[in-house]
């Protein structure tokens, strides 16, 4: 087991900055998710850790050992590729046995270990098949088995669940998490699905365009996003962003928009006192933190999206639509006026220009 440290890590492809000055520390046995939209440099980061790509700049440490010039075969990492990358000409058994064969382990040990890990993953019956004769879920398990069988120090997974159907994905999510906790392997898990990251990871590194946006626990990212990007990326129903200017009246801070005014709770005044009055800001509040049916603000129900257990109510507040999450059996009618309020301690305020969070 090892810890991983990335220091000022960059990778440029010609003029594309795939990864830009990334600093990240992953503790021994920790499960870290790299989260970000397509093309933000997740795979590139993973491949640098695996040793496939050489960093353009920066350093990679395993424990305190500099790994930059260590070839992939000497890093003892296990990796599950986005495409699984099973060897088409080998049977499932040979695929899983491949890393052990390369380590020149004795035959009976190889057979025993392959059998063990295959049974663990429920693919013990498939060992004689070729990869082309497997379903997506089975291929994914074979890829996992191949990465696990060598007992790696670091486990790298590149969107391993993205090719599975929704039901299998939820099941595998739990299984992977369980497995990681059992083996306590330092794990870096790449995904663009924030639900996956939130449910599985100890800590999440959010990337955008090759730049690290925030690194923290799921709870931190959810409750204290550092900027608009993170705030918008985390959460199953996206956060509401309400534009306006910061104003002061009677000692109270308010957000003044086109047709609306929102009061900013007193508790935040300390943070806001250095901001110039009139600054353009964005108020962020998650749909699940908008209470409806009562409160100091009002708008018109614009449209209702039932989700079964919940429903999303879109409220027109004049020039801006905000979403509120309500129980599925809450009765509303489109076009009717509706009252609402924000949970005071759950609002965020971002600077419009930089996107950085004040609150």
């Amino acid at each position, binding site marked *: 087991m090892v810890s991983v440290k990335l220091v000022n890590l960059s990778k440029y492809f010609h003029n594309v900055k795939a990864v830009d000055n990334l600093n990240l520390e992953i503790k021994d046995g920790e499960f870290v998710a790299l989260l970000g939209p397509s093309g933000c440099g997740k795979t590139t980061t993973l*491949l640098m850790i*695996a*040793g*496939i790509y050489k960093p353009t700049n920066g350093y990679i440490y395993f424990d305190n050992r500099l790994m930059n010039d260590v*070839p*992939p*075969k000497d*890093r003892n*990492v*296990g*990796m599950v*590729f*986005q*495409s*699984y*990358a*099973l*060897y*088409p*000409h080998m049977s499932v058994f040979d695929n899983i046995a*491949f*890393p052990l064969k*390369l*380590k020149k382990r004795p035959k009976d040990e190889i057979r025993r270990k392959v059998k063990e890990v295959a049974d663990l993953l429920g693919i013990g019956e498939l060992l004689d098949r070729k990869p082309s004769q497997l379903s997506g879920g089975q291929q994914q398990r074979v890829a996992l088995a*191949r990465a696990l069988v*060598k007992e790696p120090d670091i486990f790298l997974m590149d969107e391993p669940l993205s090719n599975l159907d929704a039901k299998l994905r939820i099941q595998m999510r739990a299984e992977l998490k369980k497995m990681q906790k059992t083996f306590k392997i330092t794990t870096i898990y790449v995904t663009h699905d924030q639900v996956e990251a939130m449910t599985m990871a100890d800590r999440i590194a959010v990337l955008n365009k090759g730049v690290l946006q925030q690194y923290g626990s799921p709870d931190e990212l959810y409750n204290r996003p550092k900027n608009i990007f993170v705030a918008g990326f985390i959460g199953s129903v996206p956060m509401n962003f309400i534009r306006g200017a910061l104003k002061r009246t009677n000692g109270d801070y308010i957000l003044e928009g086109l047709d609306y005014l929102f009061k900013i709770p007193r508790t935040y005044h300390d943070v806001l006192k250095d901001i110039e009055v009139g600054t353009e800001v964005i108020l962020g509040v998650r749909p699940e933190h908008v209470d409806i049916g009562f409160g100091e603000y009002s708008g018109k129900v614009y449209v209702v999206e039932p989700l079964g257990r919940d429903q999303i109510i879109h409220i027109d507040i004049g020039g801006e639509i905000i979403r509120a999450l309500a129980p599925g059996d809450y009765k509303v009618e489109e076009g009717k006026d509706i009252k609402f309020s924000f949970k005071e301690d759950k609002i965020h305020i971002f600077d419009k220009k930089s996107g950085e969070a004040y609150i």
Partner: protein
Amino acid sequence: MRIVPLLKNSIVYIILLLVTLPIILLYTLLFLQSISVNLNGVIPNGFTLDHWSILSTGNIRVPGTTTQYYPNLYLVASNTFILAVIIAFTEVVLSSLAGYALSRYKFAGRSQILTLTLILHAFPGITLLIALFYVLNALGLYNSLIGVVIVKVALDLPLGIWIMKGFFDGIPWDIEMSALVDGCSRLGAWWRVIMPNVRNGLMAVLIFGFLSGWSEFIYVLTFIASQDYWTFSMFVYALTTGEYSYINPGITATVAIIYMIPVIIFFLFAQKYLLRIQIAGKSTV
């Protein structure tokens, strides 16, 4: 209701038979020629195995002379075989290396090289005869099988490279990376993971190379002076044209059949590989 597919099948077979009939007839005739005293038009006249007796010593006698006018059949056979095998293996090695590089590496002039190889392939080889003659002569390779090998390989290589590039293109990068992570060196990954997956391509190039070397005629005729380096094509040519004022159709037919047999065997075993070629499926030029 099984009558319909049966009918369909028989129509297919009848068409096939009609199309191949001339070829089949000619080969039948060739065979008959080799086992009869003479052919009366197309009717065999008297059965004999005399012509096949050349297999015992490999020598062909011109009646009434003691001089050995023709080279030994076995020498010719081994020359042909050596030529074909060397051409085939050289082509396999060079096309797989070049195909790999062209498929995997981005370098300046890559697409130009790809186009150029195709253009080279488009030239009829015969237009190069005189120029090649000068070159080989200057290199001291005139009248040697190596000279023929070099020329053949150079001309066949573009096709081989394109075939191999197509196969390499079909292998995702991920598999190669995965092999590196699993513990292979770069070379190890190439050998253990890439090569097994292009086996069909290698076989195809090997087969093309072998057949192209086995049947080569024009360059042997032009660049080989000594009988010591004759190949089958040259041998049959000499026998048919009666180079030494001696034509024996029976022996000519026999030698022609001996020339053909390895090709037929080779094809029977190789056709499944040839069916899998895709020269430029989803490749990038």
